[in-house]
């Protein structure tokens, strides 16, 4: 192409070769002031040592901050003859009845507040493409026309059998996790005190307040806004009956948490926090009992269900990875630093020999 360019300039009669002296500027002469770093042992050596020390220090910090976090996992899938086995074998989605099971456990040490209650599903592919695209964010943002005309991707949960649009449409919404948990503190005399679970603030603030919106209530009644829509087939109640108060409809936080699909087939979702009432300082040591309403079937795809109690630090939940990696890399840097030092000394000898 450039060849063509110059041939054009030559065809355009440049008879007198009026060539001028090129500009003597730093740019045209390719001598812009420049910093020229060079990767040699001598130069990277200090860098490696500094980095190594810093990483080791950071790694120790991260490791300890992760180690202070307390975490308790309770599997309630109901395999074998565990407590929830009855429910697990019984539960079929359609029949509408509920099954409850109780899971006693004890804490050997206190969990300081805030304690988070998560549920964890495994072997559950929320990241399957067919599944994860099966939703309509416009519908969920409360647009009334989208409410009645869900997007193509929502199939097969776009319209129900009678042709009424489903709200919220799609596989993700339809498969909303519907087990519920109640936590009791068991005194040594056997009396139980209900631990209040704070269900607010479990979803991203921006999701609850901006991204998800209920349709404009008709005459102040939200249910009327959903007139002409059907509930997802797997749901027991329509969307406007989820939760209470202003935690209902599309902005129900449990629903929003579920709608943020997970990256990997084993995932946790925040169920609630324990920070209210008598338990505002956390969970004291002692015995507890978890009452589970068991609705959600997972055995058909070999999934498991767990409940996790976890305390928090500034870096989130228990995460040994960061601390260990920083420690490993820090020490690796220092070791390599010594190797470099050896190379550097040897090289200097060579240099002198030259």
């Amino acid at each position, binding site marked *: 192409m450039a060849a063509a360019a110059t041939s*054009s300039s*030559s065809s355009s009669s440049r008879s007198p070769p009026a060539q001028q*002296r090129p500009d003597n500027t730093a740019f045209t002469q390719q001598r812009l*002031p420049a910093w020229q770093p060079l990767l040699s042992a001598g130069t990277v050596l200090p860098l490696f040592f500094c980095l190594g020390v810093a990483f080791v220090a950071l790694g120790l910090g991260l490791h300890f901050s992760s180690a202070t976090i307390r975490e308790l996992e309770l599997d309630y899938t109901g395999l074998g003859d565990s407590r929830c086995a009855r429910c697990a074998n019984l539960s079929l989605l359609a029949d509408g009845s509920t099954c409850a099971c109780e899971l006693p456990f004890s804490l050997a040490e206190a969990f300081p507040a805030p304690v988070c209650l998560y549920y964890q599903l495994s072997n559950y592919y929320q990241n399957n*493409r067919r599944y994860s695209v099966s939703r309509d964010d416009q519908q969920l943002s409360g647009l009334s026309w989208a409410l009645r005309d869900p997007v193509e991707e929502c199939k097969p949960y776009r319209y129900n059998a009678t042709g009424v649009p489903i709200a919220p449409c799609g596989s993700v919404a339809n498969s909303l996790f519907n087990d519920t948990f109640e936590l009791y503190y068991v005194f040594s005399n056997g009396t139980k005190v209900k631990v209040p679970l704070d269900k607010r603030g479990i979803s991203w603030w921006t999701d609850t307040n901006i991204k998800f919106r209920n349709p404009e209530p008709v005459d102040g009644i939200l249910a009327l806004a959903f007139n002409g829509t059907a509930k997802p087939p797997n749901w027991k109640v329509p969307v406007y009956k989820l939760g209470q108060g202003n935690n209902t409809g599309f902005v129900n936080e449990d629903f929003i948490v579920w709608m943020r699909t997970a*990256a990997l087939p084993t995932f946790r979702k*925040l169920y609630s926090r324990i920070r209210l009432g008598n338990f505002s300082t956390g969970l004291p040591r002692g015995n507890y009992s978890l009452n589970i309403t068991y609705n959600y079937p997972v055995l058909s795809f070999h999934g498991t269900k767990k409940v996790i109690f976890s305390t928090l630090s500034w*870096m989130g939940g228990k995460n040994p990875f960061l601390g260990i990696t920083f420690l490993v890399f820090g020490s690796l840097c220092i070791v390599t630093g010594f190797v470099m030092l050896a190379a550097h000394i040897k090289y200097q000898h060579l240099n002198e020999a030259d």
Partner: protein
Amino acid sequence: MWRWIRQQLGFDPPHQSDTRTIYIANRFPQHGHYVPQKFADNRIISSKYTVWNFVPKNLFEQFRRIANFYFLIIFLVQLMIDTPTSPVTSGLPLFFVITVTAIKQGYIDWLRHKSDNEVNGAPVYVVRSGGLVKTRSKNIRVGDIVRVAKDETFPADLVLLSSDRANGSCHVTTASLDGETNLKTHIAVSQTAVLQSVANLDKLDAVIECQQPEADLYRFVGRITINQQIEEIVRPLGPENLLLRGSRLKNTKEIFGVAVYTGMETKMALNYKSKSQKRSAVEKSMNSFLIIYLIILLFEAILSTILKYAWQSEEKWDEPWYNQKTERERNSSKILRFISDFLAFMVLYNFIIPISLYVTVEMQKFLGSFFIGWDLDLYHEETTQKAQVNTSDLNEELGQVEYVFTDKTGTLTENEMQFQQCSINGVKYHEINGKLVPEGLIEDIPDGIRPGLAPEEELFLKAVSLCHTVQINNDQADGLCDNPWHTNSIASQLEYYASSPDEKALVEAACRIGVVFTGTDGQSMEIKSRGRPERYKLLHVLEFDPCRRRMSVIVESPSGNKLLFTKGAESAILPYSTRGEIEKTRVHVDEFALKGLRTLCVAYRKFTAQEYKEVAQCLYKAKTALQQREERLAEAFNFIERDLELLGATGVEDKLQDKVQETIEALRLAGINVWVLTGDKHETAVSVSLSCGHFHRTMNILELVQHKSDSTCAEQLRQLARRIKDDHVIQHGLVVDGTSLSLALRQHEKLFMEVCRNCSAVLCCRMAPLQKAKIVRLIKTSPEKPITLAIGDGANDVSMIQEAHVGIGIMGKEGRQAVRNSDYAIARFKFLSKLLFAHGHLYYIRIATLVQYFFYKNVCFITPQFLYQFYCLFSQQTLYDSVYLTLYNICFTSLPVLMYSLLEQHVHPHVLQSKPALYRDISKNAHLGFKPFLYWTFLGFVHAFVFFYGSYLLMGEDTSLLGNGQMFGKWTFGTLVFTVMVITVTMKMALETHFWTWINHFVTWGSIAFYFVFSLFYGGIIWPFLHTQNMYFVFVQLLSSGSAWFAIIIIVVACLFLDVVKKVLYRHLQPTCTEKAQLTETGTGLSCLDSVCCVSDGETACASLRRMLERVMGRCSPARVNRSWSASEPFYTTDRSILTLSTMDSVTC
């Protein structure tokens, strides 16, 4: 009718007769059934597109490129079937690439249109209906009579009808066609030359028959038939009657000519046909890399498809209760599903083929080539010529050269001839102070003793001053020559113009000595011998041609004798000479040649009246022949130029160019084989070779010359091969001449090649232009496929320049033909060293890294996507958001690598040039070989694994990474991987960068900053018209997690860690010469850290900090801030010492 349509559509070319018939002023014969021939109009169209066809034509051309076509297919697949990414992800980058290319091509074409319009709209004067009509150039038709005034260019190829001079001659310069600045005389046929007014011309009734248009500028065959009253006069037309479009009228008030070739059929236009495209080695390896990546892509797609079906064989994975299929999905045919799955994976992974690679490479080459033209070191002050880049496609090839083929005259030498010696009648003469002094007589003889010239001396000088095609600039010649007192001093005032510098030197010498050529008027030549004017009638000029290697004139002396003067190469004269001191002259010629002088022999022949008649007839017949005129002319010339009496020989010195020796030495140190190919005599060539350092005194010089038969040649070759084998300590030089070469190549190519490869210097003399090209091709196609470079200045080097991988033209005195056909043009041979060692080396490093990096960054980009499929049931879930997929190559990672590829200087050009041995480090496409490619690809995969599994492990069993216990989702995971990737890939480029100007800083940190700013903006808005708002606040949430920050840091460091360690260890354990050079540069000067601190006044405050920083950061540019070398500063500081130094370097490496 059908046929007419086909003709119009261009299927059937209209019947082409061998000649075209032109009726002057378009006066067609009234009688008879005359079918007018169709000619093109006079529009010059160099543009490719019009406004209407630009879009379709340009698109068509772009999609003929395999990469663009591939992306178009991907785009169409995305449109047609349900694929994981929206069509925008591949459509937008494709659109971007296509648009950038289209804009560039459109701009170039717009420039062409502009120049076309300028040319086509230029006002011209045409004789029509009895008057002079002003019209536009594009309206000229074949047959129109055109008037051209002084200093105007000719608007079409015209046959000269008349000029303002009585003899119908005019002078033109063809500088813009072939660069020859001398004045050329063109003459009109005498019958039309008298028609000097419009009125007269209007009455002219004549027909021109001539050949169909052809590109050869110097060939024209035709005849004109003039109807005067009832009589028909036929006159031959040759190139001397033809005025070419593009040349300029000089020294003549006005001329009239009839247009014979117009528009695109003019010789100028035919010569601007685009040359065959040369492709560089880098481009070839780029294409093979693409194919490898295509295979990887196919492999990944097939593997994914198969694994998908393996997983899906169980229903619990294929269709668990929470993820039901639609009826249509359940019922679709298995094969169709399989195919669409495969295509979907192809689409998902298609970014592994770097879409913007081609457009970036193109931009890099286009923009990067400006640096050559801008370089002051390649600028020649004396001639005010800067280097010229005719094609930017080969920049990096300059760094790969293994063989240099150079012409001698004008390339190694100045082509500035100085008359030195001559041999007259067997006596050798020197020129001393404008006097010819015979050998043996020393200058101490006072001037008075040799009163004049001996008759044989005078004859010799007359021959020299008559037998040539030198012109005198008329304006100055008038008046000066009439002064009889200044015969000697006149030489300095007379300005001669000649196309051949030898002729000019000879005529000037004769002028100094006493026989002054004072002018020609086309029909006679005037000389002044010892102040006495003599007028010779010029009867015929037998032009020089490279086959005959001689030229002659036939003149009628004042006394009425018809004389033939011939001068030419000794091999072209001596065999035809029958009288004179042939043997003595031959000895002298050889002596001259040994001194490195260019020799010419001069001879003459006296015709008897009978002989002359015969000769004239013979010439006339040949000249008027319409068919095979060339052959017949050659025959006629051979018939005439025989039976000569030898007068003597001349020796002209051609000065060596500046720094030729150093340059050749440097080329050799760089591992480049230098071959000199010249048309000169064996002895001349050898002596020049010795003086320019091509041959050393210590070299054992082998000769393969003057073999007439196949068998002796073969025998000699075998003998040479044996000698080389016996003695491999000493360096060998080989001398071959043209005839032996053609014998050697005919049957013993292999043997010859072997001998050549073992010689450190090869000199080929007596080469015809095509033989030069043949040698180049021979080396080019030899098994090692070395990269060749040909450099020359004359028309005889054009074929070799076009044949070689890189052709370099020297802007010399022999016209611009070589420059026009070259890929690069420079003013002096010595500039070759900067062009190759500095520019070539840098361009190669830049483009090699660019190509490798492009593949690397796309592997990094797409492999996590592939890995993610293992965790999402091969459901073709994308890891990144569509917008990120789209912008990764366009915005986030494009600029740092482009700027790197324009500005990188891993070693200072000055060092590169002074240590030619560094050139060996990159020879044989070292940075784009299989190993480096594998390394980069491997690195890409490793980095991709680290990005993905680093993020994966961080998530662990999906623990919360936020301080408030909330959870991330799928898109945050993808964004984390993407963020790490953008930073790592940019930092990898930063690691490769050795030359950090503010531009590099700006684009590198700017790219990362832009990514952050863009992501914040993109995630900060609920985008209207989108069904999904996947990315809403994802990036902010990611950044609000402390763990994510630490993870980003550790993953980026982990990726680069290995690379840094590898680089450092290699530098210490196996340093390349280049790396050593980088280190030595550190030692030469540590003064300032300009880009970091202390530019102006921080001297003391920063000093300690600076010292520490220097230790940490390595070298910093020495005096670079304030340095401004002038062009005059020698870049070989002390020529020889540097050379010896670098020899040592090359040994120690």
